[in-house]
């Protein structure tokens, strides 16, 4: 990926799935910036909602929110985290109470925070790249 005029190459951070992201966004790094911003926002909202569902003991609701957050991670190339969300979503089918879901939930919560952090870092990198030659 490069800026057409200046031939400045942009590489996504190594902790993200570069090959997939390059295929997904092509040279459209403006689009990538927009999607990352929107995705981080959705993760923040998702985090609040999963917190609420967990504390209400609403496991089906928690499962639904996890399901919705899962593809958002994919759009940011965080496939490993996405897989962990998928595993937790599956596990939620068996859980009958928040107590049973507790360990998994806190693990997912820390992964969400990590994903938001990585997403924010990438937004800054993309912004810097996209505005550098304006």
């Amino acid at each position: 990926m490069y800026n057409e005029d200046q031939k400045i190459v942009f590489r996504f951070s190594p902790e993200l799935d570069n090959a997939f992201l390059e295929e997904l966004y092509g040279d459209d790094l403006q689009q990538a910036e927009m999607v990352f911003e929107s995705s981080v926002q959705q993760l923040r909202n998702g985090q609040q909602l999963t917190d609420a569902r967990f504390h209400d003991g609403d496991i089906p609701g928690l499962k639904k929110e996890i399901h919705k957050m899962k593809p958002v991670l994919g759009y940011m190339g965080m496939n490993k985290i996405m897989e962990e969300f998928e595993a937790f979503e599956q596990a939620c089918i068996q859980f009958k109470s928040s107590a049973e879901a507790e360990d998994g939930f806190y693990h997912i919560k820390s992964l969400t925070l990590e994903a938001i952090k990585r997403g924010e870092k990438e937004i800054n990198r993309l912004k810097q790249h996209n505005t550098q030659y304006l």
Partner: protein
Amino acid sequence: MKYQSIIVEDLQVAAEFLTRFCEKSGMIDVLHHFLNAEDAMEFLRDNVVDLIFLDVEMPGASGFELLDQLVYTPQVILTTSKTEYAYDAFQYNVTDYLKKPFTYQRFLESVQKVSKKTEQLNGGSEQDHMFIKADGKLIRLHNDDILFIESMGDYVKFITPVKKYITHNTIKNLETKVNPQVFMKVHRSYIVNFTKINDIQENVLFINGNMIPISKTHKSGVMQKINIL
């Protein structure tokens, strides 16, 4: 042929991606994006589409519940983040199944499947006819029988050498349904069969003695399409 589609998807970022891919392909018009199945059902009660991009798990009714309600069968591409729905997808005879997030390349493969299925439904060849509802029945008109189509407000008139058929439709809608190899819109009120044009004078063309205006917007398209020696 350009497919008229709707997107039923509660995840905004996924819908934005899909809309962008549809635009990029140049093959699919997105008429609407719905965040839930109920609103889409409401729309589909009064509107006909060729293709639905459908999420399965949404707030309220699921994608499959929407399919249960449909009284006709547009093509369906399921867009979901779960692979467990493959069996249901097969049962509902959907055209394809896209696991989110998916790339443009994967999206194009789906669109090719839609084209292939359309071709099969049309008899395996380039669309050479159409059915219109007129005189209380469905009438099969071969492309070659149609001279031109004229707008009459909410109705259109199909002109053939022997008869005129009036049917409830619009030029705008027909523009995307007719075979572009044969038909072309030359004015907001006219679609003509290109093979039937006798002559063109300035901003007017003639077909079997009928004078049809060519609008400024469509003039260059018409001139590009005709074979001037």
